[in-house]
């Protein structure tokens, strides 16, 4: 008995061993490395993963790129700089990926940029928003898709001029992203609104806000304008506490990212109406290409898209275009194909500026409003990023390459 079954197993093994080369007869796939904070920043990154998965499936269904399939090897980056570079090292030296993309937190993005420079591999920072990635810490291997802090804050400050608010308070998470956004705000508000002053600043640790004391400390300064950079659980607590204590009633509020569904949905019916925000009114965008994306996404996942979904979807298509134009996966060829390249994306044409590797993707700016049981955006407009980018002189002054 035992012998028969052993022979059967052996036969199965031989069949499998002989069978697999037949499958591999087609060319090996192009491997791309991806890393993100899927555990700690799940609200953004899980829809983002769904987005890139959708694009990947579409591309491979049409035969891939350069006659080869695309394969994305995805890893958890632990939301810390050390873990992220460690995982990136594993992707590069064990998996042999051709380029890296991903990461959510800005500090992780900066560490990844440093890693890319050290290991001479292309890294596409899809989400991290700090200016440093394309400015002070920028290098020729690091590219960014989303509009950076200076660009998004610039769009908001333009809206603030009309309100006439002069006494501004800042509340921002105390890490790279919050610090960079606060610095950009201070710089731009002084340039563009004469007589504006900063009367209060609060920097709670990321994910550890004490909402009550923070709100009353801001209230104490009696600001007529508030600039908010909080997101995630910090934001929900801040908004609820601020609503209760009437912090927002007499003030103009500018808020980064709050119009994005990932941060707006958890607020439910407590959406602070009238805030001027950057966000993503996905249900009101009528361009046919975007509509097709939304329909495909909803059909596949039975869920509404977040901004992360859009970004993940866009990035993978941009990577496909890049590899196709480069004609190979060689790092130098990829860099050449990326610099000053034009991409036709779901949100319209996007250019990757060569001097700082910052794309011209824009953002939707509008006001928050309560629609039924949840929040949404009104009076919104898509602002192309080109006119908000740092000038060439500013870039050259801080970049070391």
């Amino acid at each position, binding site marked *: 008995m035992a012998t028969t079954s052993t022979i059967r197993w052996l036969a199965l093994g031989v069949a499998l061993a002989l069978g697999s080369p037949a499958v591999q007869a087609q060319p090996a796939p192009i491997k791309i490395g991806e890393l993100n904070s899927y555990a700690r920043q799940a609200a953004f990154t899980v829809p983002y993963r769904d987005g890139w998965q959708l694009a990947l499936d579409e591309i491979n269904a049409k035969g891939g790129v350069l006659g080869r399939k695309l394969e994305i090897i995805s890893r958890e980056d632990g939301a810390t700089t050390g873990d992220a570079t460690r995982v990136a090292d594993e992707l590069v030296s064990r998996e042999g990926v051709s380029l890296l993309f991903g990461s959510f937190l800005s500090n992780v993005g900066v*560490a990844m940029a440093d890693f890319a420079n050290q290991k001479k591999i292309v890294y596409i920072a899809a989400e991290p928003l700090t200016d440093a990635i394309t400015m002070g810490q920028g290098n020729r291997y690091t590219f960014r898709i989303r509009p950076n802090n200076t660009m998004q804050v610039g769009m908001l400050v333009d809206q603030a001029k009309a309100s006439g608010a002069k006494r501004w308070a800042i509340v921002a998470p105390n890490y790279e992203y919050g610090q960079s956004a606060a610095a950009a705000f201070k710089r731009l508000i002084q340039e563009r609104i004469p007589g504006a002053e900063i009367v209060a600043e609060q*920097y709670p*640790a990321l994910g550890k806000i004490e909402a009550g004391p923070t709100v*009353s400390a801001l209230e104490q300064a009696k600001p007529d304008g508030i600039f908010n950079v909080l997101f995630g659980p910090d934001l929900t607590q801040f908004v609820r506490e601020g609503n209760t204590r009437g912090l927002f009633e007499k003030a103009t509020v500018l808020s980064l990212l709050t119009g994005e569904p990932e941060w707006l949905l958890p607020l439910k019916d407590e959406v602070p109406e009238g805030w001027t925000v950057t966000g993503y009114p996905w249900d009101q965008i009528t361009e046919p290409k975007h509509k097709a994306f939304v329909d495909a996404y909803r059909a596949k996942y039975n869920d509404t898209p977040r901004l992360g979904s859009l970004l993940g979807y866009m990035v993978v298509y941009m990577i496909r275009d890049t590899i196709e134009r480069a004609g190979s996966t060689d790092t130098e060829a990829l860099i050449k194909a990326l610099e000053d390249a034009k991409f036709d994306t779901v949100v319209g044409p996007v250019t990757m500026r060569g001097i700082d590797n910052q794309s011209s993707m824009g953002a939707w700016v509008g006001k928050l409003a309560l629609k039924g049981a949840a929040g949404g955006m009104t009076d919104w407009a898509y602002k192309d990023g080109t006119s908000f980018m740092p000038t060439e002189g500013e870039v050259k002054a801080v970049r070391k390459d």
Partner: protein
Amino acid sequence: MDPSFLAVQALSGLSSASSLFITACGLTIVFGVTRIVNFAHGSLYMIGAYTAATLVPRLLEFSFGPTSFWAGILLSALIVGIIGVIIEVLLLRRIYGAPELFQLLATFGVVLVVQDLVIQIFGPEDILGPRAPGLRAPVEILGRRFPSYELVLIAAGPVVLGLVWLLLRRTRFGVLVRAATQDRDMVASLGVNQAMLFTGTLFLGAFLAGLGGALQIPRVSAHAGMDLSIIAEAFVVTVVGGMGSVPGAFLAALVIGQLQAFGILIFPKSTLVVVFLLMAVVLAIRPYGFFGRAEIVGGTHAIGIASHKPLPGRTYILLVVIAALAAFPLVADAYLLKVATEILIFALFAFSLQLLIGVGGLVSFGHAAFFGLGAYGAALAVKWYGASMETALPLGLALAALGAMLIGAFVVRLSGIYLAMMTLAAAQILYAVAFQWVDVTGGDNGIVGVWPSQWASGPVPYYALTAALTLVTVLLLRRIIDAPFGYALRAARDSEARAEAIGLRIRRHRWLAFMISGAAAGLAGGLYAFSRGSVDPSLLGISTSVDALTMLLLGGIQTVTGPLIGAGVLHFLRDQIMPLTSYWRLVLGLSIIAMVLLFPRGLVGTIRHWQEQRA
């Protein structure tokens, strides 16, 4: 400053004090009776918040108004109480007699398991609970608006204190709890049903944790990081108040609540550090907190390396090991070399801890402090002084030794669980400093660009450097363990009184042990910083300390080679398994629990035990 503002700020402080007390009170009662420092208490709090945030909106649909809200809160707390009972029956019951280290680790295993399970059950998104019906509108206090729910919370703290006091003073269960807190063995000898008593206590503790979490839902969204943030604060409250003392916890919570509320005005960027600083100051002045009392420590809890006859032919074994290490680059690719380098670094880290725990019997729960100091010392030298790797590594080591000297000076006055908590506090203070002193340490961003010198960069040279340094340090530590100094430490571990009686200066020996161990851990930290090219605050975090302890435990605490083997096995497994599954924490947590329950001797210890039994 405006008096109305001060009043409102003080009220905010009172309401956080109340919430903190309700949670910490459960922790302190559980500790009083079972003597277990329950890391999983924060997880119970988190489960309470998640359960309430999911359950209460459903109940509110029945439109009974406030009744269903409060019923939902109580129901959630009851559910958490039952989960507490399950944890007691399945796990804690089996480890009451185990050394503190094993208990701490086992409950930390539960923390890891719960983190993954909560995300699986409740989903990755944060859940914002509903507001309490009837308490939506704010009240005016001196012309300022204040959330009325916070007033309810302020009242809830004293109410819970009163109820717990009644329970402890007026019921038979309470009498037994107090008796067990005073003398557990005596209660057992008097024929009290201990199983029932302990299960009941765990139910009460978990219920309070769940209640604390559930009461938070109108002000805080339930999210996956709440467990560790609350447990750190709850530890501070129980330790400052005196472990096992309910009124002490109340007083400590009041102090901490006010400290946080006003600390944000004075140091808006250093909110985390003040709390742990308070704990360090209190323990330095009163080693048992406000109302705690000295623990009876004896040889019973001491575990550590035992004396063995030296293996025959150990010189040859050593030579074989050196040859194997030297030959490894010939067969391994770049990535394997990277893994091997990290294993060597962790082996050194775990081995330095062995000197404290295995030899000295000093259960340090904050060994990451020295690892992190070494890493930061090296990275700061590179960042601020442009130091080369050759200068930065010794500087990191020196900073770690200096830190160990300072921390050790406070720690060696303590014993048992207070000692473990003091080391934890020290590590958390350093973590907070690294995290919030943004101008110097880069905060959450850490420091990047810490790459080795030209001659040592590349996988092979850096591996060789690490291997050489690790080998030399381990042999040196090994020599120290076998020297009279090591035997003096062991004597103090096994019987403090007798060691003192024969004229050993225990505190000075232990202090020295701290410095040596800290310096070795600092060297490991510096090597680690250069191998990764960056440092970040997580190197100083609780999970780094737990890593070292797990390696020690996995390898076997009674043997000298245990931590080296443990580091290799754990890091190799992590490297292999982590890319395959998103349930790494679940796997790790279950493994830790299994190790504590099934292999308390560790890998090397078990093998040696078999050999000895056969002999």
